[in-house]
């Protein structure tokens, strides 16, 4: 079954979109076309984003929030306009709830570190518990290990079902009166699973716990309304949503941001400084010490404009259609086991799999020789791999520019891989 015979519902006008992404027209060594199936790792950038970065540096470059001159005013306006764009894109009730970081890891570490220093209601100590899940990216595991080790608290986690969903059977025991934080991914970067954030957030709030969501894979793929999500803090990164590297976002409810102490100390995060002590600016500036990633924020604004013009509901429908098609085709490959939900239900567009008799590095090496870019390894989710008894996997992931023909190329590439390694 290929797309020539079966039209897929929900696909975007991919050819028109692909024309915006110069890199997709690149020829690789040996004049091979690029088949890029690694967008969960990082997405490509449309010309509009590249132009925004370039124009910022060419025409408006200045530091922000401190220069009185015209360029400073222009740079500041562009930087803050991007904050407005992010706020609107994710449904933040206030622009002041949008903090720019360098990436999602920094956003999550910002939360875990400031919680370690918090006093009062948010203080974490002996006997308190932090709950995460077994499907987290290392960036949503390690900061909480550090926090609980430093504070004498206990780290606990939701296990996974064989299908790759959260095992919620012990939720009443896991989320209890000792729970101070529940931090989990919205969409798994390895299994593709979409988690029921609202339900878990409700249970966490019943016991007074904070809810932190790693939305790195969700914001690029799904329409997002943080106000409706039920979370207190949401982290994501720009480079996975057709934006530049070096820019991430932490959204937090105003009351929570107000209660958290500052993160890094330095310029722009203060109200006033004397030699003995300082007072601090309000959020978001309280958490943005030093010169921020200005051009990157402007580029992120352009990325959001780009995705908004297409419409996130349509982006999500495309992702869903391509993922469903890929799951169907991958099931036809003998010796291939999908790790994670096998049907495109409550599922994002990352598909990790094993190919019997061929190590993921070798799979990705053969695919690379055909111009097909996938990820091989543990995808910074070692515990989730361990849960499924594997050390590593091969992952194909899709985005708004992915075509069904690229999925077909992957399937053909896997057949060639099997022939090369002489596995049935």
């Amino acid at each position, binding site marked *: 079954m290929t797309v020539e015979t079966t039209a897929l519902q929900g696909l975007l006008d991919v050819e028109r979109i692909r024309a915006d992404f110069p890199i997709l027209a690149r020829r690789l*060594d*040996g004049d091979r076309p690029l088949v890029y199936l690694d967008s969960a790792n990082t997405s490509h950038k449309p010309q509009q984003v590249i132009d925004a970065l370039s124009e910022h540096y060419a025409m408006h470059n200045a530091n922000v929030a401190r220069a009185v001159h015209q360029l400073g005013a222009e740079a500041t306006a562009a930087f803050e306009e991007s904050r407005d764009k992010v706020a609107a894109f994710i449904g933040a009730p206030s622009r002041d709830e949008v903090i720019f970081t360098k990436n999602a890891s920094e956003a999550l570490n910002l939360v875990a570190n400031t919680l370690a220093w918090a006093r009062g209601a948010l203080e974490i100590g002996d006997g308190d518990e932090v709950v995460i899940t077994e499907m987290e990216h290392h960036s949503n595991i390690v900061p909480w290990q550090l926090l609980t080790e430093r504070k004498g608290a206990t780290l606990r986690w939701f296990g996974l079902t064989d299908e790759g969903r959260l095992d919620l059977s012990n939720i009443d025991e896991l989320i209890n009166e000792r729970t101070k934080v529940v931090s989990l991914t919205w969409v798994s970067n390895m299994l593709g699973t979409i988690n029921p954030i609202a339900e878990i957030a409700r249970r966490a709030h019943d016991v007074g716990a904070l809810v932190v969501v790693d939305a790195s894979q969700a914001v690029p793929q799904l329409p997002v309304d943080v106000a409706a999500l039920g979370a207190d803090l949401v982290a994501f990164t720009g480079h996975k949503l057709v934006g530049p590297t070096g820019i991430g976002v932490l959204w937090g409810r105003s009351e929570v941001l107000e209660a958290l102490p500052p993160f890094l100390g330095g310029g722009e995060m203060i109200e006033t400084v004397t030699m003995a002590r300082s007072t601090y600016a309000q959020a978001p500036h309280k958490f943005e010490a030093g010169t921020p990633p200005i051009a990157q924020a402007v580029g992120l604004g352009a990325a959001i404009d780009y995705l908004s013009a297409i419409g996130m509901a349509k982006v999500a429908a495309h992702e869903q259609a391509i993922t469903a098609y890929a799951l169907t085709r991958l099931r036809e490959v003998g010796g291939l086991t999908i790790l994670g939900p096998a049907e495109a239900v409550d599922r994002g567009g990352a598909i990790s799999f094993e190919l019997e008799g061929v*190590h*993921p*590095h*070798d799979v990705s*090496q*053969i695919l*690379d*020789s055909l111009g097909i870019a996938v990820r*091989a*390894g*543990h995808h910074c989710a*070692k515990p989730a*791999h361990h849960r499924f008894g594997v*050390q*590593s996997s091969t992952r194909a992931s899709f985005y708004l520019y992915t075509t069904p023909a690229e999925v077909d190329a992957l399937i053909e590439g896997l057949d060639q891989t099997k022939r*090369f*390694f002489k596995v049935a």
Partner: protein
Amino acid sequence: MDLQALYQEIILDHYKSPHHAGLREPFDAEVHHVNPTCGDEVTLRVHVEGDLVSDISYDAEGCSISQASTSVLADLLIGKRIEDANGIHQKFVELMQGRGKIEPDEDVLEDGIAFAGAAKFPARVKCALLGWMAWKDATAQAVTSAEATR
């Protein structure tokens, strides 16, 4: 890209049936090395007797390149004098770090010359060196503990 250069028959043969695999006694040092970017792992034991590498045993999980290179390592170094084994180790590391520009000496590296092609693939050099770095570490520990008990 030259896949045949990377995946020589010798490498695929060692991958399918690794030599000297499994963990054995006696041993003087055991190390566990991982490639943090991909998760490849090897547990490797070294037994020294006097100035001889009398056994190398291992339990490895990883790609064809890392598995095969550990197998070749055991073939090459078991029974060698430690000094000679260190010399072969150095030649193999030089080959792998030579970006494919070094002509390997078959008299010294034997099946190890099959990895000359892998040296052209920067992402795979670490795979090829995993077992070798583990051996270096384990042998240094084995020699140190032997000296301490002397």
